Protein backbone atom coordinates (compact mmCIF):
# COMPACT_ATOMS: atom_id res chain seq x y z
CA UNK A 1 0.00 0.00 0.00
CA UNK A 2 1.35 3.43 -0.92
CA UNK A 3 0.72 6.72 0.92
CA UNK A 4 -1.29 8.29 -1.85
CA UNK A 5 -3.32 7.52 -4.96
CA UNK A 6 -5.47 9.43 -7.40
CA UNK A 7 -8.52 7.37 -6.45
CA UNK A 8 -9.35 5.33 -3.36
CA UNK A 9 -12.32 2.98 -3.73
CA UNK A 10 -13.91 1.76 -0.49
CA UNK A 11 -15.69 -1.58 -1.02
CA UNK A 12 -15.14 -4.45 -3.43
CA UNK A 13 -18.70 -5.25 -4.57
CA UNK A 14 -19.87 -4.71 -8.15
CA UNK A 15 -19.97 -0.90 -7.74
CA UNK A 16 -16.44 -0.60 -6.39
CA UNK A 17 -14.93 -3.13 -8.79
CA UNK A 18 -16.32 -1.42 -11.88
CA UNK A 19 -15.33 2.01 -10.55
CA UNK A 20 -11.76 0.84 -9.92
CA UNK A 21 -11.49 -0.80 -13.32
CA UNK A 22 -12.81 2.28 -15.14
CA UNK A 23 -10.47 4.69 -13.35
CA UNK A 24 -7.45 2.40 -13.82
CA UNK A 25 -8.20 1.96 -17.53
CA UNK A 26 -8.09 5.76 -17.85
CA UNK A 27 -4.55 5.69 -16.44
CA UNK A 28 -5.17 6.88 -12.88
CA UNK A 29 -3.52 5.29 -9.85
CA UNK A 30 -6.23 3.40 -7.95
CA UNK A 31 -6.41 1.57 -4.64
CA UNK A 32 -9.47 -0.55 -3.82
CA UNK A 33 -9.92 -1.72 -0.23
CA UNK A 34 -12.33 -4.51 0.72
CA UNK A 35 -12.76 -5.27 4.40
CA UNK A 36 -13.80 -8.88 4.02
CA UNK A 37 -11.08 -11.49 3.64
CA UNK A 38 -12.61 -12.82 0.45
CA UNK A 39 -14.49 -10.79 -2.15
CA UNK A 40 -18.12 -11.86 -2.64
CA UNK A 41 -18.65 -13.93 0.52
CA UNK A 42 -20.87 -14.28 2.41
CA UNK A 43 -23.20 -13.79 -0.58
CA UNK A 44 -25.99 -11.28 0.00
CA UNK A 45 -27.94 -11.60 -3.22
CA UNK A 46 -30.57 -13.38 -5.31
CA UNK A 47 -27.99 -13.07 -8.07
CA UNK A 48 -30.27 -12.15 -10.98
CA UNK A 49 -29.47 -9.59 -13.68
CA UNK A 50 -30.86 -8.84 -17.14
CA UNK A 51 -28.70 -10.36 -19.86
CA UNK A 52 -28.41 -7.05 -21.73
CA UNK A 53 -27.48 -5.31 -18.49
CA UNK A 54 -24.73 -7.83 -17.80
CA UNK A 55 -23.31 -7.55 -21.30
CA UNK A 56 -22.85 -3.80 -20.87
CA UNK A 57 -20.07 -4.61 -18.42
CA UNK A 58 -18.66 -8.03 -19.11
CA UNK A 59 -18.96 -10.83 -21.66
CA UNK A 60 -21.14 -13.72 -20.55
CA UNK A 61 -18.88 -16.50 -19.28
CA UNK A 62 -20.22 -19.90 -18.26
CA UNK A 63 -18.06 -19.85 -15.14
CA UNK A 64 -20.24 -17.29 -13.38
CA UNK A 65 -23.59 -18.04 -15.04
CA UNK A 66 -25.71 -20.56 -13.17
CA UNK A 67 -28.88 -20.30 -15.26
CA UNK A 68 -30.47 -18.46 -18.16
CA UNK A 69 -34.12 -17.64 -17.63
CA UNK A 70 -36.65 -16.84 -20.30
CA UNK A 71 -39.80 -16.10 -18.36
CA UNK A 72 -40.76 -14.37 -15.14
CA UNK A 73 -44.03 -15.16 -13.42
CA UNK A 74 -45.87 -13.09 -10.83
CA UNK A 75 -47.97 -15.17 -8.46
CA UNK A 76 -50.69 -13.22 -6.65
CA UNK A 77 -52.31 -13.82 -3.24
CA UNK A 78 -55.10 -15.86 -4.96
CA UNK A 79 -52.44 -18.03 -6.69
CA UNK A 80 -53.22 -16.28 -9.99
CA UNK A 81 -50.28 -16.39 -12.38
CA UNK A 82 -49.22 -13.58 -14.65
CA UNK A 83 -46.32 -14.07 -17.01
CA UNK A 84 -44.10 -11.08 -17.62
CA UNK A 85 -41.59 -11.53 -20.41
CA UNK A 86 -39.04 -8.81 -20.17
CA UNK A 87 -36.07 -10.26 -21.99
CA UNK A 88 -33.64 -12.87 -20.81
CA UNK A 89 -32.37 -12.93 -17.27
CA UNK A 90 -29.14 -14.42 -16.01
CA UNK A 91 -28.71 -16.00 -12.58
CA UNK A 92 -25.12 -15.43 -11.55
CA UNK A 93 -22.83 -17.20 -9.18
CA UNK A 94 -21.79 -14.07 -7.31
CA UNK A 95 -18.93 -15.74 -5.51
CA UNK A 96 -17.28 -16.14 -8.91
CA UNK A 97 -18.77 -13.07 -10.58
CA UNK A 98 -17.68 -10.54 -7.93
CA UNK A 99 -14.14 -11.97 -8.00
CA UNK A 100 -14.06 -11.79 -11.78
CA UNK A 101 -14.98 -8.10 -11.63
CA UNK A 102 -12.23 -7.48 -9.08
CA UNK A 103 -9.77 -9.38 -11.22
CA UNK A 104 -10.68 -7.16 -14.20
CA UNK A 105 -9.94 -4.11 -12.06
CA UNK A 106 -6.58 -5.57 -11.05
CA UNK A 107 -5.77 -6.40 -14.66
CA UNK A 108 -6.49 -2.80 -15.62
CA UNK A 109 -3.87 -1.73 -13.06
CA UNK A 110 -5.82 -1.08 -9.86
CA UNK A 111 -4.22 -2.19 -6.60
CA UNK A 112 -6.53 -4.44 -4.58
CA UNK A 113 -6.22 -4.94 -0.82
CA UNK A 114 -8.49 -7.39 0.98
CA UNK A 115 -9.10 -7.65 4.71
CA UNK A 116 -8.46 -3.90 4.57
CA UNK A 117 -11.10 -1.75 6.22
CA UNK A 118 -11.53 1.98 5.79
CA UNK A 119 -12.14 3.04 9.40
CA UNK A 120 -12.31 6.83 9.03
CA UNK A 121 -12.03 9.48 6.35
CA UNK A 122 -9.11 11.90 6.38
CA UNK A 123 -10.76 15.33 6.31
CA UNK A 124 -9.41 18.81 5.61
CA UNK A 125 -12.30 20.99 6.68
CA UNK A 126 -15.27 19.71 4.68
CA UNK A 127 -13.13 17.95 2.11
CA UNK A 128 -12.44 14.22 2.02
CA UNK A 129 -8.73 13.67 1.32
CA UNK A 130 -8.32 9.93 1.86
CA UNK A 131 -8.92 7.36 4.55
CA UNK A 132 -7.45 5.53 7.47
CA UNK A 133 -7.09 1.87 6.45
CA UNK A 134 -6.79 -0.93 8.97
CA UNK A 135 -5.35 -4.18 7.71
CA UNK A 136 -4.01 -7.23 9.56
CA UNK A 137 -3.76 -5.23 12.79
CA UNK A 138 -1.87 -2.31 11.21
CA UNK A 139 -3.07 1.21 10.52
CA UNK A 140 -2.25 3.17 7.36
CA UNK A 141 -3.10 6.71 6.31
CA UNK A 142 -3.83 6.73 2.61
CA UNK A 143 -4.42 10.01 0.83
CA UNK A 144 -6.43 10.25 -2.36
CA UNK A 145 -7.63 13.01 -4.63
CA UNK A 146 -11.07 11.40 -4.65
CA UNK A 147 -12.64 8.65 -2.55
CA UNK A 148 -15.38 6.57 -4.16
CA UNK A 149 -17.62 5.21 -1.40
CA UNK A 150 -18.86 1.81 -2.64
CA UNK A 151 -19.40 0.30 0.80
CA UNK A 152 -22.85 -1.13 0.08
CA UNK A 153 -25.77 -1.37 2.47
CA UNK A 154 -23.70 -0.24 5.47
CA UNK A 155 -22.68 3.04 3.81
CA UNK A 156 -20.70 4.21 6.80
CA UNK A 157 -17.92 5.98 4.94
CA UNK A 158 -20.15 8.78 3.63
CA UNK A 159 -21.78 8.96 7.06
CA UNK A 160 -18.41 9.54 8.71
CA UNK A 161 -17.81 12.30 6.15
CA UNK A 162 -20.99 14.03 7.32
CA UNK A 163 -23.57 12.75 4.83
CA UNK A 164 -26.67 11.14 6.35
CA UNK A 165 -27.06 7.67 4.85
CA UNK A 166 -29.34 6.21 7.56
CA UNK A 167 -32.24 4.21 6.10
CA UNK A 168 -35.66 4.56 7.76
CA UNK A 169 -37.34 1.30 8.77
CA UNK A 170 -39.96 1.69 6.02
CA UNK A 171 -37.17 2.12 3.46
CA UNK A 172 -35.45 -1.25 3.85
CA UNK A 173 -36.31 -4.82 3.01
CA UNK A 174 -35.14 -7.38 5.49
CA UNK A 175 -34.22 -10.50 3.51
CA UNK A 176 -33.34 -14.15 3.99
CA UNK A 177 -32.55 -16.70 1.31
CA UNK A 178 -31.66 -20.38 0.99
CA UNK A 179 -30.02 -22.21 -1.84
CA UNK A 180 -32.30 -25.25 -2.03
CA UNK A 181 -31.26 -28.37 -3.95
CA UNK A 182 -32.95 -31.50 -5.22
CA UNK A 183 -36.33 -29.84 -5.84
CA UNK A 184 -38.80 -29.90 -8.72
CA UNK A 185 -38.66 -26.54 -10.48
CA UNK A 186 -38.87 -25.19 -13.99
CA UNK A 187 -35.29 -24.17 -14.52
CA UNK A 188 -36.24 -21.54 -17.13
CA UNK A 189 -38.80 -19.68 -15.00
CA UNK A 190 -38.33 -17.11 -12.24
CA UNK A 191 -41.19 -16.77 -9.80
CA UNK A 192 -42.22 -13.83 -7.64
CA UNK A 193 -44.88 -14.36 -4.97
CA UNK A 194 -46.64 -11.17 -4.05
CA UNK A 195 -48.78 -11.92 -1.03
CA UNK A 196 -49.07 -10.38 2.43
CA UNK A 197 -49.06 -13.88 3.93
CA UNK A 198 -45.83 -15.03 2.30
CA UNK A 199 -43.98 -11.71 2.54
CA UNK A 200 -45.69 -8.66 4.11
CA UNK A 201 -44.71 -5.45 2.35
CA UNK A 202 -42.37 -7.33 0.07
CA UNK A 203 -42.16 -10.50 -1.98
CA UNK A 204 -40.84 -14.01 -2.11
CA UNK A 205 -38.70 -15.21 -4.99
CA UNK A 206 -37.61 -18.46 -6.60
CA UNK A 207 -34.64 -18.02 -8.93
CA UNK A 208 -33.47 -21.29 -10.55
CA UNK A 209 -29.76 -22.00 -10.40
CA UNK A 210 -29.74 -24.86 -12.90
CA UNK A 211 -31.32 -28.28 -12.70
CA UNK A 212 -33.24 -29.00 -9.46
CA UNK A 213 -31.66 -26.12 -7.59
CA UNK A 214 -32.84 -22.58 -6.78
CA UNK A 215 -32.33 -19.49 -4.65
CA UNK A 216 -35.51 -19.20 -2.60
CA UNK A 217 -35.73 -15.96 -0.67
CA UNK A 218 -38.04 -13.58 1.16
CA UNK A 219 -37.83 -9.83 1.61
CA UNK A 220 -40.22 -8.11 4.01
CA UNK A 221 -40.52 -4.42 4.77
CA UNK A 222 -38.51 -3.38 7.84
CA UNK A 223 -41.64 -2.13 9.59
CA UNK A 224 -43.22 -5.61 9.29
CA UNK A 225 -40.30 -7.36 10.95
CA UNK A 226 -40.83 -8.58 14.54
CA UNK A 227 -40.10 -11.56 16.76
CA UNK A 228 -41.62 -14.65 15.19
CA UNK A 229 -42.35 -12.66 12.01
CA UNK A 230 -38.88 -12.13 10.65
CA UNK A 231 -37.67 -12.80 7.10
CA UNK A 232 -36.19 -16.11 8.28
CA UNK A 233 -39.56 -17.17 9.76
CA UNK A 234 -41.43 -16.52 6.50
CA UNK A 235 -38.71 -18.31 4.55
CA UNK A 236 -38.72 -21.37 6.79
CA UNK A 237 -42.48 -21.55 6.63
CA UNK A 238 -42.55 -21.38 2.82
CA UNK A 239 -39.75 -23.87 2.26
CA UNK A 240 -41.11 -26.37 4.81
CA UNK A 241 -44.56 -26.15 3.21
CA UNK A 242 -43.55 -26.30 -0.44
CA UNK A 243 -40.18 -28.05 -0.53
CA UNK A 244 -40.07 -30.22 2.59
CA UNK A 245 -37.49 -32.57 1.04
CA UNK A 246 -35.28 -29.84 -0.40
CA UNK A 247 -31.67 -29.82 0.72
CA UNK A 248 -30.45 -26.45 1.92
CA UNK A 249 -26.77 -25.90 1.17
CA UNK A 250 -26.42 -22.16 1.69
CA UNK A 251 -28.12 -19.47 3.75
CA UNK A 252 -27.78 -15.76 3.13
CA UNK A 253 -29.34 -12.72 4.75
CA UNK A 254 -29.30 -9.07 3.96
CA UNK A 255 -30.92 -5.68 3.77
CA UNK A 256 -32.00 -4.03 0.53
CA UNK A 257 -32.52 -0.28 0.45
CA UNK A 258 -35.93 0.52 -1.06
CA UNK A 259 -35.88 4.15 0.06
CA UNK A 260 -35.19 7.20 -2.07
CA UNK A 261 -31.58 7.65 -3.16
CA UNK A 262 -29.34 10.01 -1.19
CA UNK A 263 -30.26 13.65 -1.86
CA UNK A 264 -26.75 14.28 -3.13
CA UNK A 265 -24.28 11.58 -4.17
CA UNK A 266 -21.22 13.82 -4.35
CA UNK A 267 -19.41 16.16 -1.95
CA UNK A 268 -15.92 17.65 -1.76
CA UNK A 269 -13.50 14.83 -2.62
CA UNK A 270 -16.10 12.05 -2.48
CA UNK A 271 -18.52 10.22 -4.77
CA UNK A 272 -21.09 7.68 -3.52
CA UNK A 273 -22.19 4.73 -5.68
CA UNK A 274 -24.39 1.63 -5.73
CA UNK A 275 -26.16 0.46 -2.59
CA UNK A 276 -24.17 3.00 -0.55
CA UNK A 277 -26.05 5.72 -2.48
CA UNK A 278 -29.29 3.74 -1.87
CA UNK A 279 -29.76 2.85 -5.53
CA UNK A 280 -31.34 -0.61 -5.52
CA UNK A 281 -34.57 -0.93 -7.47
CA UNK A 282 -37.21 -0.21 -4.80
CA UNK A 283 -39.75 -2.54 -6.45
CA UNK A 284 -37.67 -5.63 -7.24
CA UNK A 285 -34.84 -5.05 -4.77
CA UNK A 286 -32.28 -5.62 -7.51
CA UNK A 287 -29.18 -3.49 -7.43
CA UNK A 288 -26.28 -5.18 -9.23
CA UNK A 289 -26.80 -3.30 -12.48
CA UNK A 290 -27.34 0.10 -10.84
CA UNK A 291 -24.22 -0.52 -8.76
CA UNK A 292 -22.06 -1.21 -11.81
CA UNK A 293 -23.66 1.62 -13.77
CA UNK A 294 -23.09 4.27 -11.10
CA UNK A 295 -19.63 2.84 -10.36
CA UNK A 296 -18.62 3.47 -13.94
CA UNK A 297 -20.19 6.95 -14.12
CA UNK A 298 -18.53 7.98 -10.86
CA UNK A 299 -15.14 6.81 -12.08
CA UNK A 300 -15.59 8.78 -15.31
CA UNK A 301 -16.43 11.90 -13.30
CA UNK A 302 -13.42 11.25 -11.06
CA UNK A 303 -11.10 10.92 -14.06
CA UNK A 304 -12.33 14.21 -15.43
CA UNK A 305 -11.98 15.89 -12.02
CA UNK A 306 -8.39 14.67 -11.55
CA UNK A 307 -7.43 15.73 -15.08
CA UNK A 308 -8.94 19.18 -14.47
CA UNK A 309 -7.37 19.46 -11.03
CA UNK A 310 -10.78 20.20 -9.54
CA UNK A 311 -12.22 17.76 -6.99
CA UNK A 312 -14.72 20.17 -5.46
CA UNK A 313 -18.33 19.20 -4.83
CA UNK A 314 -19.41 21.65 -7.50
CA UNK A 315 -17.36 19.81 -10.11
CA UNK A 316 -18.19 16.31 -8.88
CA UNK A 317 -21.94 16.97 -8.87
CA UNK A 318 -21.72 16.34 -12.64
CA UNK A 319 -21.82 12.65 -11.64
CA UNK A 320 -24.98 13.16 -9.59
CA UNK A 321 -26.70 14.85 -12.51
CA UNK A 322 -25.42 12.24 -14.98
CA UNK A 323 -26.99 9.24 -13.26
CA UNK A 324 -30.24 11.06 -12.44
CA UNK A 325 -30.63 12.09 -16.08
CA UNK A 326 -29.71 8.64 -17.47
CA UNK A 327 -32.27 5.97 -18.41
CA UNK A 328 -31.28 4.17 -15.22
CA UNK A 329 -31.96 7.29 -13.13
CA UNK A 330 -35.31 7.96 -14.76
CA UNK A 331 -36.42 4.39 -14.33
CA UNK A 332 -35.31 4.55 -10.73
CA UNK A 333 -37.43 7.63 -10.16
CA UNK A 334 -40.46 5.89 -11.71
CA UNK A 335 -39.89 2.85 -9.53
CA UNK A 336 -39.71 5.03 -6.42
CA UNK A 337 -43.15 6.41 -7.33
CA UNK A 338 -44.51 2.90 -7.90
CA UNK A 339 -43.21 1.87 -4.49
CA UNK A 340 -44.78 4.92 -2.83
CA UNK A 341 -48.13 4.15 -4.43
CA UNK A 342 -47.94 0.54 -3.27
CA UNK A 343 -47.51 1.65 0.34
Amino acid at each position, binding site marked *: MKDSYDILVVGGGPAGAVAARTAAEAGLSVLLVE*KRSAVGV*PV*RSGESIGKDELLEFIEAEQRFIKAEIDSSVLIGPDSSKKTIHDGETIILDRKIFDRELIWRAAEAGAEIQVHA*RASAPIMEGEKVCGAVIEQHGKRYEVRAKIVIAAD*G*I*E*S*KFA*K*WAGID*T*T*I*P*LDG*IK*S*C*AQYLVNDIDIDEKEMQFYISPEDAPGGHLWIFPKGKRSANIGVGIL*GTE*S*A*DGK*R*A*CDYLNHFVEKNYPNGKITE*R*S*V*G*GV*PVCKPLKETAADGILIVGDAARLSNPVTGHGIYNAMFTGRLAAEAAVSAVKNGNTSKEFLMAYDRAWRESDMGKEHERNCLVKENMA
Partner: protein
Amino acid sequence: MITIRREVCGYCGACVSVCPSGALELIDAYLSVDSVLCKPKCKLCSTVCPLGAILRSEE
Protein backbone atom coordinates in the same frame (compact mmCIF):
# COMPACT_ATOMS: atom_id res chain seq x y z
CA MET B 1 -28.03 -1.82 25.73
CA ILE B 2 -28.22 -4.37 23.01
CA THR B 3 -26.74 -7.84 22.99
CA ILE B 4 -25.48 -9.28 19.75
CA ARG B 5 -25.89 -13.02 19.41
CA ARG B 6 -22.83 -13.76 17.33
CA GLU B 7 -23.85 -17.37 16.91
CA VAL B 8 -27.01 -16.19 15.11
CA CYS B 9 -25.76 -13.14 13.15
CA GLY B 10 -25.31 -13.60 9.39
CA TYR B 11 -22.93 -10.63 8.87
CA CYS B 12 -25.30 -8.80 6.51
CA GLY B 13 -25.21 -5.14 7.55
CA ALA B 14 -28.97 -4.48 7.52
CA CYS B 15 -28.85 -3.34 11.15
CA VAL B 16 -25.87 -1.06 10.43
CA SER B 17 -27.83 0.80 7.75
CA VAL B 18 -30.80 1.67 10.00
CA CYS B 19 -28.81 2.71 13.08
CA PRO B 20 -29.31 6.47 13.42
CA SER B 21 -26.32 6.96 15.70
CA GLY B 22 -23.70 5.01 13.79
CA ALA B 23 -23.15 2.66 16.73
CA LEU B 24 -22.88 -0.55 14.70
CA GLU B 25 -20.16 -1.75 12.34
CA LEU B 26 -19.07 -5.02 10.78
CA ILE B 27 -15.45 -5.30 11.88
CA ASP B 28 -13.42 -8.32 10.86
CA ALA B 29 -15.67 -11.35 11.17
CA TYR B 30 -18.20 -9.78 13.56
CA LEU B 31 -20.80 -7.14 14.17
CA SER B 32 -19.61 -4.71 16.84
CA VAL B 33 -21.56 -2.15 18.86
CA ASP B 34 -20.20 1.05 20.35
CA SER B 35 -22.13 1.16 23.62
CA VAL B 36 -21.40 4.87 24.10
CA LEU B 37 -23.13 5.78 20.83
CA CYS B 38 -26.05 3.35 21.16
CA LYS B 39 -29.18 5.24 22.20
CA PRO B 40 -31.39 4.16 25.06
CA LYS B 41 -34.93 3.10 24.09
CA CYS B 42 -34.00 2.61 20.43
CA LYS B 43 -34.51 -0.86 18.97
CA LEU B 44 -34.36 -0.28 15.22
CA CYS B 45 -31.49 -2.70 14.66
CA SER B 46 -33.11 -5.50 16.59
CA THR B 47 -36.38 -4.96 14.66
CA VAL B 48 -34.86 -5.07 11.18
CA CYS B 49 -32.57 -8.08 11.67
CA PRO B 50 -33.72 -10.92 9.38
CA LEU B 51 -32.55 -13.50 11.92
CA GLY B 52 -33.31 -11.96 15.31
CA ALA B 53 -29.64 -11.80 16.23
CA ILE B 54 -29.89 -8.61 18.33
CA LEU B 55 -31.52 -8.65 21.75
CA ARG B 56 -32.63 -5.44 23.38
CA SER B 57 -32.44 -5.50 27.15
CA GLU B 58 -34.76 -3.19 29.09
CA GLU B 59 -33.19 -0.01 30.44
